[in-house]
């Protein structure tokens, strides 16, 4: 596997994209969209993180092993969040004390 070679133009486009998304995220946050405000804020942040990881960190240009490690980090984090929230959010759903 040879070293990923990313041209300057790709970096500049990624940078412009990130600045644009930061501006979009900030402006959208001024609107009161209820629960969607959080969904959109985290969604745009996730797109920005993907741009940084994919282009600036070259994850898209790397070997399968590295892609699996990246995916592993994300998936394990999602397992941690979803299983923890599974507990906290469902507390009080059943009409028994302590359930």
């Amino acid at each position, binding site marked *: *596997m*040879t*070293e990923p*070679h*990313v*041209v*300057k133009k790709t*970096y*500049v486009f*990624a*940078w412009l994209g*990130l*600045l644009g998304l*930061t501006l979009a*995220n*900030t402006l959208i*946050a*001024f*609107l*009161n*969209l209820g629960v969607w*405000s*959080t969904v959109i*804020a*985290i969604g*745009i*942040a996730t797109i*920005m*993180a993907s741009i*940084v*990881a994919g282009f*600036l*960190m*070259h994850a898209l240009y*790397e*070997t399968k*092993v*590295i892609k699996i*490690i*990246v995916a*592993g*980090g*994300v998936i*394990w*984090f999602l397992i*941690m*969040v979803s299983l*923890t*929230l599974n507990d*906290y*959010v469902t507390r009080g759903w059943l009409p028994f004390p302590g359930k």
Partner: protein
Amino acid sequence: MSEPASLACREQFASPEQQRETSTIGMWVFLASEVMMFGGLFTAYTVYRVSHPEAFAIGSAGMDIWLGSINTAVLICSSLTMAFAEESAQAGNQKLLGFFLVATMLIGCLFLGIKFTEYVEHYHEHKAPGFWFNDTSPYARYVQMFFVFYFIMTGLHAIHMIIGICILAGLLYRTFLGTFTSIYHSPVFVGGLYWHFIDIIWIFLYAIFYLPGLHQ
């Protein structure tokens, strides 16, 4: 000083490509462990925010959106200069590599300066958790919890920034020694991975601390 060719393929590796991939995998595994460390804090924040949304909205409304947004843009710019440093190293241009490493460090210092200004503001507004904290809302207890998360998570991020600047200083020293060439420059790439990762963490910190209170 070792020759670039011997640095690019040390005796335990079959080829320079294998050495490069090994160091890159090592850094990504470390970053995955960092995801777990910050992940625990993000999870705890999520649990508290789901449980006390009003308090977290009040806490977030007290953030300085301008300083936060400028800092986000500043950090994104530092990622671009770091990417240019990597590209210069790949091209074997040591002068440009040195220039972009210094630029990245200076922009990193600017970020820390703005962050420090914000911390001072929070302190004077009695938002620092502890006996100094003062909030008159009925949710004061959990507004304080918001600021506990804020200071711990942005503080841990700032510590990573300081470590990142030290790593860049080490890379700059080795650049002056002439270690990095078009054949051997994987430390610049690995240092770059760490720097860009700090950027990713901040992007999420910005979204969870600064944005929720904007429409209050």
